[in-house]
């Protein structure tokens, strides 16, 4: 473990002893809890104190966080299948009926009204007639699962995938929909699934953040930061946003600052803090803060290394398409490659976004209201080759064995076109996401929408169940992983959810 056993430029023996003593206390009985209480100061973290006691009752489980090393690996509740998660999030609501959810009846009834829903108003406007996908579907892989021609390369990997065709959302608006998919709540201010997981488990490489969000080269998604927010959890568990185009903020000082200047400042700071600590013996938070500078120094070294794609082979670059003539495809490909490098280095949760919002409806994302065919023909290739290469790469390197891949979007789209438009309106009543890798059945399809893809009708599931299943695969009990806040035990799955046992391998 890289930690305080190694010599630190900032932390004296005195500081080390103080931290070790506190860590020892934290690991032992009830008094330890009080030592932590003093450190963490606030009610939320106070809850740490109860975890040992409640363990016996099947009550809430609240991991003990060492403030000097918030990202340190922590044990799961039970043996995990997955050690890390990659979530590919297609922002803008990627149409299931044009990608993964094959509906022969929709093709047959093309141009007819959706039965029983003649006067339906969905999100943006009145519904028009049923409209078949502009792309053909054909059997793919060994299993022969029908997938559309829109995403041929991802389609070629259906044998690895575990489809959930009966996903539903509680909202039909993008922002709340993304919030719901990322945090379980449609309103803002709740911790992201990645934040919950890094709170629970820390990470296997403390020199990198436990949770990294990789925004699309085109910008951030609809709900922007809220997708990787720590909500009420400690700020250390917030997703650190960076991608192949924009490195971690403030990793280095502005260019005009000399290295000698930075070194002089760091050395003086170390001395000042050390002497200050000596004047305030017993204040572990001061020592922990010194340690955070040490961690920052290591991050300054490890983040550029992890982001350095030049170390990858030419074959790899070509497979992902990092040098593709289409700059957005190449940009997303670099983000995909970055994702693999981060996962490889032990980052616990990588949330990789495809699509951004600033340019408006459907222009830079999957929100195909008016010109579905034209827009998807732009967006699909950007996703297809790089994401397929990433999945294939994880498999080739044996990483799928203990990496869970989740492909998702905030909700689906209608099988009908909007009245007077060439695109589909929002549809939270049934859509598709898929899992791959650690601990899930494949090839496998779970649940189904009706004959047109309008509503989930078979084994209807929801985001809470998806979250519960993700936690389960990581060895976490979604009903017990908890944080006490604003007068209640808070959970990722609120009061809902069950593990979708059927998809577990």
């Amino acid at each position, binding site marked *: 473990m890289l930690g305080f056993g190694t010599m630190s430029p900032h932390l004296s023996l005195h500081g080390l002893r103080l931290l070790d003593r506190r860590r020892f206390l934290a690991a032992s009985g*009830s008094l330890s809890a009080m030592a932590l209480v003093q450190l963490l100061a606030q009610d939320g973290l106070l809850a740490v104190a109860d975890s040992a006691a409640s363990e016996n009752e099947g009550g809430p489980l609240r991991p003990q966080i060492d403030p000097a090393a*918030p990202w340190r690996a922590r044990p799961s509740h039970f043996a995990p299948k997955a050690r890390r998660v990659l979530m590919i999030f297609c922002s803008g609501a990627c149409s299931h009926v044009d990608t993964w959810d094959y509906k022969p009846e929709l093709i047959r009834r093309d141009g007819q009204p959706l039965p029983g829903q003649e006067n339906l*108003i969905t999100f943006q406007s009145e519904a028009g007639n049923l409209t078949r996908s502009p792309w053909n579907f054909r059997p793919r892989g060994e299993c022969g699962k029908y997938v559309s021609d829109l995403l041929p390369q991802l389609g070629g990997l259906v044998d690895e995938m575990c489809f959930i065709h009966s996903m539903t959302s509680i909202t039909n608006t993008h922002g709340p929909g993304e919030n719901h998919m990322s945090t379980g709540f449609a309103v*803002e201010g709740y911790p992201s699934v990645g934040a919950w997981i890094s709170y629970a488990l820390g990470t296997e490489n403390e020199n990198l953040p436990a949770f990294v969000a990789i925004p699309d080269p085109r910008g951030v998604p609809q709900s922007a930061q809220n997708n990787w927010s720590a909500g009420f959890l400690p700020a250390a568990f917030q997703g650190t946003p960076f991608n192949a185009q924009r490195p971690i903020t403030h990793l280095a000082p502005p260019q005009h600052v000399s290295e000698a200047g930075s070194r002089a400042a760091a050395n003086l700071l170390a001395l000042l803090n050390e002497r200050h600590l000596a004047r305030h013996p017993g204040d572990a938070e*001061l020592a922990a803060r010194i340690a955070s500078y040490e961690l920052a120094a290591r991050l300054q070294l490890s983040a550029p290394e992890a982001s350095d794609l030049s170390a990858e082979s030419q074959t790899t670059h070509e497979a992902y398409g990092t040098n593709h003539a289409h700059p957005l495809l190449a940009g997303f490909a670099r983000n995909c490659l970055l994702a693999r490098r981060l996962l490889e280095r032990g980052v616990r949760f990588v949330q990789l976004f495809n699509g951004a919002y*600033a340019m408006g409806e459907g222009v830079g994302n999957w929100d195909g209201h008016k010109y579905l065919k034209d827009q998807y023909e732009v967006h699909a290739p950007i996703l297809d080759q790089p994401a397929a290469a990433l999945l294939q790469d994880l498999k080739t390197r044996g990483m799928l064995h203990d990496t869970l891949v989740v492909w998702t979007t905030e909700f689906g789209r209608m099988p009908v076109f909007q009245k007077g438009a060439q695109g589909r309106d929002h549809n939270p009543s049934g859509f598709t996401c898929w899992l791959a890798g650690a601990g899930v059945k494949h090839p496998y399809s779970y649940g189904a929408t009706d004959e047109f893809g309008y509503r989930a009708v078979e084994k209807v599931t929801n985001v809470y169940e998806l979250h519960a299943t993700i936690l389960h695969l990581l060895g976490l009990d979604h009903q017990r992983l908890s944080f006490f806040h604003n*007068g209640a035990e808070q959970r990722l799955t609120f009061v809902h959810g069950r593990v979708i046992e059927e998809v577990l391998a």
Partner: protein
Amino acid sequence: MLAPRAGKTSALWVSNSQGYNSNMRVQHLVCLFTGAVWLLALPARAAEDAFLPVARLLVKYCLECHSGPEPAAALNLTTREGLLAGGESGEAAVVPGQPEQSYLVHQVQSGNMPPEKTRRVLTEAERQQLVAWVAAGAAWPEGRVLDPYDFTTEHRAGKDWWSLQPVVRPSLPAEAADPWVRNPIDAFVLARLRVAGLEPSPEAERLTWLRRVTFDLVGLPPTPEEIEAFLADAAADAYERVVDRLLASPRYGERWARHWLDVARFAESAGYEVNTARPNAWPYRDYVIAALNEDRPYDQFIVEQLAGDQTGAEAATGFLVAGAHDLVGIKNIEGQLQQRADDLDDMVSTTAGAFLGITMNCARCHDHKFDPVTQTDYYGLAAVLAGVQHGERVVRLPGYEERLRHEPEVRRELAEVQARLRELLWMHEPVAGSGQVRPPVSPVGNVDRFLPVRARKVRFTILATSDAEPCLDELEVYTAEQPPRNVALEAAGGRATASSVYAGGALEIHQLAHVNDGRYGNARSWISAEPQAGWVEIELAEECLIDRVAWARDREGKYADRLATRYRIEVAPEGGAWRVVASSEDRALYQPGSPPAAPQERLPPEARAEHDLLASRIDELRAALPEAATMSVYAGAFKEPEPVRRLHRGEVMQPREVVPPGAVAALGRPLELDPAAPEPLRRLTLARWIASGDNPRTARVMVNRLWHHHFGRGLVATPNDLGWHGGLPSHAELLDWLADEFVQRGWSLKAMHRLIVLSATYRQASAPRAECVAVDAANRLLWRYAPRRLEAESIRDAVLAVSGVLDLRMGGPGYDAFEPNTNYVKVYIPKTNFGPAEWRRMIYESRPRMVPDATFGMFDCPDASRSQPQRPTSLTPLQALSLLNSPFMVQQAELFAARLRREAPLDTTAQIQRAFLLAFGRTADEVELESARAAVASGGLESLCRALFNANEFLYVH
């Protein structure tokens, strides 16, 4: 009543200190304690006495299911009748006097009830109690109906929960006589410490206390001068005078407003996916700062924030709508209802949490699981607030009424001064055709002077423009008399005709009638339909002697296109021929794009001085007009609401019965309000109901907030929740004493601050002491002052103060920490270049919702998604990176270094000492001096400054 209560709480307190927070043992004691109070509060009636213990068992084990409109198994255990009638089993639940015939007893004895899933089991003693009660005849007071909320149990709070009981001022403990005690606060604190066998810490050093109290009250470090003065002040009241100075400083309101704005979930954008900015939300922020600085009584502060539109504090209602609001319109009805329900939930939850310490949102879908708050309570509050809509409304700012009284004379003088100014400028313009080259045309205003001439008609003909069709916002024709009159005005009988009108007059803002309507600006203008050409003619009411024509493209200065660059002005007398009186021929060439010189630039010095005098008088007079004291403020709009219905499971598509406006029943006095009361009266009535000394929560909640901010933790650790999950106060009597004192002192916050920071408790040193850590590591007993990291705003403000560039301008629109952009959706890209505009206190940073400040957001700034009464203190390596490397901090270190060079030129040692004094309030010792010299030698003064800004000594108060 006081004595037993005090005894119980102190005994209780000891166990509480060892395992705070929903600990079973503690809660059991809570039950005993509150039960005792309840008992004492009741008249001693025999039946009641016999009944009570069993009533408590029924509440605790049975009523969760066996009560309400649809009790489980049709068995209602809230009344004697229900008990005797039994449920689906057909048997009586209880046969008085015959336990063995009683179904209820059987079920309990066999372990069937309570069911296993509840994980609740009666103790042997409780079972015997139940059996004995049935055997003794199952006494049940006449007509008594049990309520599941009657008693606090191990699992939840009942109506007897401590914070629902009236505040009763406790007598001072015997420790009041102890020499350590400076005021009553200390007596309560010392009493608790002594029960635990502890003593308080020694007094903090003077400098430590000064730094502590200065950051605490004003959020800035003490200046070297303030430090020197205090350390040298041997007077007995030196501490008092520091506190009075700090409380009188406007910096106090800026510091403490932040605490309240966190609670009010105030942010200056809508939130959700479009997160559009709310540029007119800041008056609420300024209202809070001003209210705190003026020490507005807290009861008034409450009323204003809920109903300030009724009490002359308009911007205060910004509180109601300070939360997020989804601007994305949904077409279907369910989506619209859901959005509205979410808005109302935000208002209800924030109001209840902020003022009453109730977690009201728990009762949105079902009765509260832990506090005696029903779904009906929730929808009653929702009905009070149901008329509040997100959005702006035009409000009158302070001073409006006064301005209105003086408006006629201000307008009169304004017209006079404007005329004089105009005359002054025009008299210095050359006369057309005089041979002197006249200045080029200007989009914002031109005058063409000519020799007096009799005219019935005036024609302005455009021959060329800067581009496109020409635009005139107003054409004025003045008489050659004193004072000159504009006879072109339609109101003066002028009649306009023109060659053409833009778009055939289809655009409301470009009409021929606008050319002589007396109103300026693009929105009241005429444009011709001919590129580069067109004419306007004014026929005057009668022939006049005239000597000038004034015209402009846009006197408001927003538009510079469509400017007439070549033109001629002709006049004709009654029945006479046209003749040219002025034209562009003798004007200098117009240079498009280059800003035209203002006419005052051309004035000779004496006239220029007179001009400036008049111009500043015009500014003064304009600022004195009533409209200068109005603005559109994001303070909500109000309309009469539809009836509010309870939503089954909180689902908008499952409305149930109508709920009239109401308050929280468990808080005692109901809201006296006609169900049909008009909207404003609903809010006003609720506000007054809250802002009352009788309300058991209001004063307690606020003094607990003050305590929280002064000591880092409230007497109840959860300032927005004085219910079950908030647990017991660490010092119940102190909390009640403070609450009562607060009301007695006219709800003065400053009086309470003064009391608290001048206490011996607050003056303690911060060093941990082993014997105390062993008993109370969390310092709930207050055996020391717990050290704290500065909050984000204090760090930033302190950095600016120390670097010497802090701009203390108060109020008005905030500065933006993000680059401006006009995307479809506002994209918040952090600025990386900072200048004086960003060097105001951080309370004046326009804070978008959900988007943290790039440098300081990491330091636990709330995202304003919901009310946040306390901030965590987290530690992440990204904080270290921000303080070390961010452009903001690097620049501040450079500015700090520049300040040192200015204030201690050419002497490194003096510079280092000055730096330590400014940053830490003390000088460096020899070791520090030596290391600092080394740092300066290899990295410059900037390296020293960067190190100081990152030092724990800078970032923590002790």
